[in-house]
């Protein structure tokens, strides 16, 4: 399941929802707001989404991961709104019977979400300026 959240991501709740008695492994990725990007010192950032399309596309990515890899559960939540340095921007969790599939699916979901889900990052730098971040 893919979701976007205006509130702080509750990773313990998401982790609990990823648990499955048939699974021997769980892989998780947390993306945090860092204090620098593309040579600039970042003070804070805002994520904007096109919510309806973001949720549809995110859930398509989760469905693709379920199809491609032998995994049992996959969850991804992306924050929107204003975030400070160190705040969690994205959480991906995958549970599977075996670790290889869980690692691969987690990576797949994160990479696809970053490139396909309509979410945009606007950084405010320490010099007071701000701007939309281009895809790297």
């Amino acid at each position, binding site marked *: 399941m893919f979701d976007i959240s205006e509130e702080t991501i509750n990773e313990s709740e998401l982790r609990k929802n990823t648990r499955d008695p048939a699974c021997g492994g769980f892989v998780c990725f947390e993306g945090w707001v860092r204090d620098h990007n593309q040579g600039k010192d970042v003070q804070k950032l805002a994520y904007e989404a*096109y919510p309806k399309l973001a949720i549809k596309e995110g859930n398509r990515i989760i469905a693709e991961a379920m199809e491609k890899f032998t995994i049992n559960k996959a969850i991804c939540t992306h924050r929107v709104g204003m975030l400070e340095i160190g705040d969690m921007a994205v959480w991906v969790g995958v549970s599977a019977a075996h670790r290889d599939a869980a690692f691969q699916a987690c990576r797949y979901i994160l990479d696809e*979400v*970053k490139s396909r889900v309509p979410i945009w990052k606007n950084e405010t730098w320490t010099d007071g300026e701000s701007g939309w971040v281009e895809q790297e």
Partner: protein
Amino acid sequence: MKNITILFFGKLKETWKTSELKQTTQAHTIEELYVELLKLCDEEPHKASIKVAINDEFVAWDSAISDHDTIAFLPPASGG
């Protein structure tokens, strides 16, 4: 003539200086609508990087526009 709603996201909000427009158009496709919209902005955006959507689904640039559609112009995603 069709009455449509146009949504701009990310840096395209700055290009068109708005996030939403209510527009009456003769355009048959998104491609034609885009040409109309270029008259409203000072600087032409990098079209090849823009994705388009109708009523909350990604579509192709040559997709037909219907009355009351919501058309969205989306710059490259930068989440994560």
